């Protein structure tokens, strides 16, 4: 009898993906740290000096959760999408399709590695922020929980993008056209309550707002939307993504072509 879950298979994929990350550790870590430092300089020091505080939180500290979210969303999507797209591009995808690993194991390996990489980078950014602003985290457990759930949700989304993409251009398209605007419009650098009522209602249609709001609540105890709603939003996203991935593997869409 074969075991129900191929654990060594999951580990092989996870380890293989993590090794790629560590091979290019300087590029992987340095670029997000530099861009975050620039955000702190521009938004925290230059503009933040004029904004004083948002709902009692100094502006420099207020943007830390947003910046971490921005990073985690971008890194989760790009790591997971590249991770599965590259075997498709190089032709080595056949190995995953003929070996005794099911969709759940392949997903766990790739998405797990992408989420861990994104979380590592986000935590490095948090550490970087201590150099610029004093950040006190009110609910560390919930901060880590939101970090994990968001990394998981967007790594799953990235995985779907990688499965869907037929070219490197397509791979870049969704992060560029969809993810980045959603983060900037999702309250990374401001509170939705600062918007006029109409635009506040529009902003609440943006799923990323719920993630940033929940994450900011973990830091400062203030949120644009109830924390429970944020948790449900990210959980729903995870479930939908899993369902789509399962369908892709069951039908072989863009995988066995």
């Amino acid at each position: 009898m074969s075991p129900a879950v191929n654990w060594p298979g999951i580990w092989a994929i996870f380890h293989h993906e993590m090794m790629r990350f560590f091979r290019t550790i300087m590029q992987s870590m340095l670029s997000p740290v530099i861009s975050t430092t620039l955000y702190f300089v521009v938004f925290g020091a230059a503009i933040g000096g004029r904004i004083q505080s948002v709902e009692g939180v100094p502006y420099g500290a207020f943007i830390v959760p947003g910046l971490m979210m921005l990073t985690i969303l971008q890194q989760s999507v790009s790591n997971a999408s590249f991770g599965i797209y590259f075997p498709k591009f190089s032709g080595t995808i056949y190995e995953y399709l003929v070996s005794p690993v099911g969709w759940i194991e392949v997903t766990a390996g790739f998405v797990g590695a992408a989420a861990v990489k994104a979380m590592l980078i986000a935590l490095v950014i948090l550490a970087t922020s201590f150099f610029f602003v004093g950040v006190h985290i009110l609910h560390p457990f919930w901060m880590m929980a939101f970090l994990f759930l968001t990394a998981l949700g967007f790594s799953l989304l990235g995985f779907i993008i990688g499965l869907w993409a037929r070219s490197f251009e397509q791979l870049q398209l969704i992060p560029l056209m969809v993810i980045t605007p959603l983060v900037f419009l999702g309250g990374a650098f401001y509170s939705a309550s600062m918007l006029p009522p109409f635009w506040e209602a529009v902003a609440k249609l943006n799923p990323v707002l719920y993630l940033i709001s929940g994450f900011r609540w973990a830091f400062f105890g203030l949120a644009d939307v109830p924390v429970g709603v944020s948790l449900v939003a990210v959980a729903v996203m995870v479930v939908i993504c899993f369902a789509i991935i399962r369908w892709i593997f069951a039908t072989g869409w863009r995988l066995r072509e």
Partner: protein
Amino acid sequence: MTNIIEIDDLSKQYGSGTTALQGVSMEIAEGEIVALLGPNGAGKTTLISIICGLVVPTGGTVRVGGHDIRTDWRAARRLIGLVPQEIALEPFETVWNTVRFTRGLYGAGPDDAYLEQVLRSLALWDKRAAMTRELSGGMKRRVLIAKALSHQPRVLFLDEPTAGVDVALRREMWQVVEGLRRDGVTIILTTHYLEEAEEMADRIGVINRGELLLMKPKDDLMGEFGRKSLTIELDAPLTAVPKSVADRGLVLSEDGRAIRYDYDTRAERTGIARLLGDLAGEGVTVRDVSTRQSSLEEVFMTLVNEDRKAEDAA
């Protein structure tokens, strides 16, 4: 000998309506080397792809080591190694890491001693730290074989192992297969190089237009379908074939020193003894005789043409 692969009434029809395989049944014994022959698009790769899990069949069953490839796919796949037609390797990975990765993917625990043995047997041990993109074409193909063997499979599929490679490399590949045969690995290879099948296989299956036309031990196939020609070298040259034997389709060589006689090995009587007797009666002195069997290529073309004629007639 136990059967490692049992295929029953396998068929594959694509959404476009194309029938890639129909009613294919075969059994392959453990330790056998089987060559699947057929022209491009005959269905050989589809058959391999179904057994390995790349393509889902429309009908029929496949069992590997007694495990159904659909209902007990994990156990079935653990027994299989696949060397694909196209060279597909991750370019920035070392030989050692890529082989270890595949072993892990198949759920096998680490066994560096075994992997070392595989790399050594494929003359890759010295290249273990090299990135796959730095290797020559022949080495890349050997890396693919090492990956396919990394989890100690009982069956190895080689899909067109020598497609597009030069003669020297093809010989090298045959030696690799010979080594695997000695280790007792069951090998199923597809090829459209008949020479390759003739060189390596114990049994040969001929596939054309999705159907398995036949599956026979190589020697039986050659004997059954092969025509032989007998060359009779003469002591003194002749100007013409003697009249008494002129009706047997003999061909006299240009210099008149040899007579060629084509005969069917399937015929009850080959007519050789009578021919030699008649020639002696005519006073022709024979210096030497030799026979030549028609190649598998000729056998193959005969089969495929017969199949085409049958199809046209129907």
